[in-house]
C-alpha cells in the first residue's frame, strides 16, 4: 500500500503526517496546562501555594528527594560500574533483575516493602533501628527503591560510553585500579553523573505510588507534593491541587532544561 507514496509526493505526505502527530501532541499538553490556568485565578493560586500545608509539602519533597537521590547515586555508581566492566556468570540475569523496579508498578514495590516490614526481620529493623512504616524515612526508602534502578541504568550507559583504555593508560602512568577510577573514569563520567542525579532527583520528587503505600498520606507528616495533590483532590480542594501541579511542572521543566544544557556539551575526542 506504500507504493503510491513513492517520490517527492510521498515525501511530502510523510512529513505532513509526522509533523501533524507532533503538533497534535503538543496541543494536547498545552491544552491541559491552559485548562489549569483557566480554572484558577492568580489570587487563590498564591494563597493556596503559600498555605502552611503546601509549603510543608514542598520542603518535605525537596529534602526527601535530595536525600534519596544522594543515596541511590552512592549505590548506583559502584553497581553500574560493576555491570558495565565486569563479566561474571549470570550477569544478564542480574542485569535484568536490576531493571525490575523500572517496569514494576511503584504501588507494588511499596506494598512489597510494607510486607517486608511485617516480617520478623523487617519488624525488628522498623522497631529498633529506623522507623520506616508511615514515617518520613519510609518516604526516602520508597523513593530510593524506585529511582535507584533508573540511576543504575543511566550510569551504566555512561560507563559503557567510556573507553576502558583511559583507565589502562592511567594505570601505565602509575595509578592503581581505584586511583584510575577516581582520577580518570569519574571525571569522564561527570556529565552523565550530573544528568542522572538531576533525573533521579526529579523522579523522586514526583514519586507517589510506593511513597503513599509505605509512608502513608498523613497531612503535615508524610505529605509530599504528589501526596498533597491526592489529598487536595480527595477533599475537593481543586485550587490547592492546581497550585501543587504547577510546582511539580516548574521543577520538572527546570530539571529537563538543566539536563539539556549538560548533554549539549558532551566530551568528544
Amino acid at each position, binding site marked *: 500500500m506504500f507504493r503510491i507514496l513513492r517520490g517527492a509526493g510521498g515525501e511530502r505526505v510523510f512529513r505532513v503526517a509526522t509533523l501533524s502527530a507532533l503538533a497534535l501532541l503538543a496541543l494536547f499538553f498545552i491544552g491541559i496546562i491552559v485548562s489549569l490556568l483557566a480554572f484558577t485565578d492568580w489570587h487563590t493560586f498564591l494563597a493556596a501555594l503559600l498555605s502552611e500545608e503546601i509549603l510543608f509539602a514542598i520542603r518535605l519533597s525537596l529534602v526527601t528527594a535530595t536525600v534519596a537521590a544522594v543515596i541511590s547515586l552512592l549505590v548506583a555508581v559502584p553497581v553500574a560500574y560493576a555491570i558495565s566492566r565486569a563479566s561474571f556468570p549470570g550477569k544478564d540475569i542480574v542485569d535484568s533483575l536490576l531493571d525490575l523496579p523500572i517496569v514494576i508498578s511503584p504501588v507494588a514495590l511499596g506494598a512489597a516493602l510494607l510486607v517486608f516490614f511485617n516480617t520478623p526481620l523487617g519488624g525488628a529493623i522498623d522497631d529498633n533501628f529506623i522507623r520506616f512504616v508511615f514515617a518520613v524515612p519510609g518516604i526516602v526508602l520508597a523513593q530510593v527503591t524506585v529511582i535507584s534502578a533508573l540511576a543504575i541504568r543511566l550510569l551504566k550507559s555512561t560507563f559503557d560510553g567510556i*573507553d576502558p583504555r*583511559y583507565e*589502562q593508560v592511567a594505570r*601505565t*602512568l602509575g595509578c592503581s585500579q581505584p586511583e584510575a577510577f577516581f582520577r*580518570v573514569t569519574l571525571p*569522564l563520567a561527570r556529565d552523565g553523573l550530573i544528568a542522572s542525579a538531576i533525573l533521579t532527583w526529579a523522579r523522586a520528587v514526583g514519586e507517589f505510588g510506593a511513597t503513599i503505600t509505605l509512608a502513608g498520606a498523613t497531612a503535615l507528616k508524610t505529605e509530599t507534593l504528589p501526596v498533597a495533590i491526592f489529598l487536595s483532590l480527595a477533599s475537593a480542594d481543586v485550587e490547592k491541587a492546581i497550585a501543587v501541579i504547577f510546582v511539580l511542572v516548574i521543577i520538572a521543566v527546570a530539571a529537563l532544561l538543566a539536563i539539556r544544557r549538560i548533554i549539549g556539551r558532551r*566530551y568528544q*575526542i
Partner: protein
Amino acid sequence: MIEIKDLSLHLGDFHLADVNLSAADGEYFVILGPTGAGKTVLIECVAGLHRIRHGEIWMDHRDVTHCAPEERNVGYVPQDYVLFPFLSVVDNIAFGLKQAGLKNRDAREKVQKMAGLLGISHLLHRDPRSLSGGEKQRVALARALAPSPRILLLDEPLGALDLRTGRYLRLELRRVHRELGLTTVHITHDLMEALEMADRVAVIQNGHVEQVAGPEEMLFHPEGERVADFIGAPNILDCDSCRDLGQGIMEVACSGLKLTVPHEGHHKISKVAILPRHIYVSRTRPPGLSVNGFQGVITAIKPVNNTVRIWIDVGETNLMSEIPTYLFDEMELAVGQEVFLILRMRRIRVYESRS
C-alpha cells in the same frame, strides 16, 4: 631489557602462540605484522593489561609476568593516543608525575623539559581535543615519557597520521630515542616504517613470530614464504656509479637505469631496493616532469589476491610492479605491451657499500 618467554594467550579473536622475543637495553625494536596479527595484544601484555596464564615476561632481569601495570614502569602510547579530554595538555603530561607524588614545582619543570624535547611547548595550555593528529601524538608521547619509564611501548604511533606528518614524526621518534636511550618497542603494519626505524624487526603473523632480524636481513633474506609474501619481494638493483647532486639527492646508475635517490652519506651506493607496490605503471606517458620515469615492456602478468604483479623489462633488468586489481582492470595491460613506469623516489631504499 625485555624478555618474552613462551607467551601464549587467547583473547576473543586474537591469540598469541609461544611468543619468544627479547629487546636489548636501548634497542629500538619494531614488531611488524598485518592487521589482526596480535601485535596490539602482545604490546598490551608487556604493559600489563592482560592476565597471563602461559609464559613469562621479564624486564631488566625481573619477572613482571604477574605485576600490575602500575608496577612495571613502562611508558605506553596507545593507538589514537587516548589523551584525557578533561585535562589540558600540561595536566595530561603531568598526570604520571602527580601520581608519582612529585611536587608541583618539580612536575612543572619536568613537563617543560618534556615539552621542549618534543617541540610542544606552545601547546601546553590547549585543550587536547583541539589538537591535530601529530600534536596529539607528541602530547601522548610526552605524557608517557614524563615519569621516566624504563621501557617505551608504541602502538602504531604513526598509523593515524597523514603521510607527511608521519614521515616527520619518524625522524622525531628516532631522535627522541637517541637522546633518551630508552628501550623501545614499536608496532606497525607498515614495512617501510619498520625498515627505516628499527634496530631489529620481528615479523608476527597470526600470533606467531615468524622471523626476528635486522632490517636489511629481513628485506634481503626473508625466512619462509609467509614472511617473503608479507614483505613482498623487493626489486634489488646493483649500482655501478653515483654522483652527488647536492641537497641530499644522488644520481646512481643501476642496471642501466639512471635513478635519482634521496641520500646523504659519504660511502658509495652499492644497492638500491624498491618494493613492487612503489612502482607505478601507466599506458600513457605521465604528464609533467617525471623523476625516475622509464619505459619498458611487459614480460609477464600474474594476479595475487587483490593485486596483480607485472614484470617489466627495463634497462638491463626486469622489475616487478604490483598494482591493485581494480586499477589493473581499468588499464587493460597485456604481455608484450610497452608501458611507462615511475619508481617513487622517496620509497627507494639505498644501501652503501661496506668498504
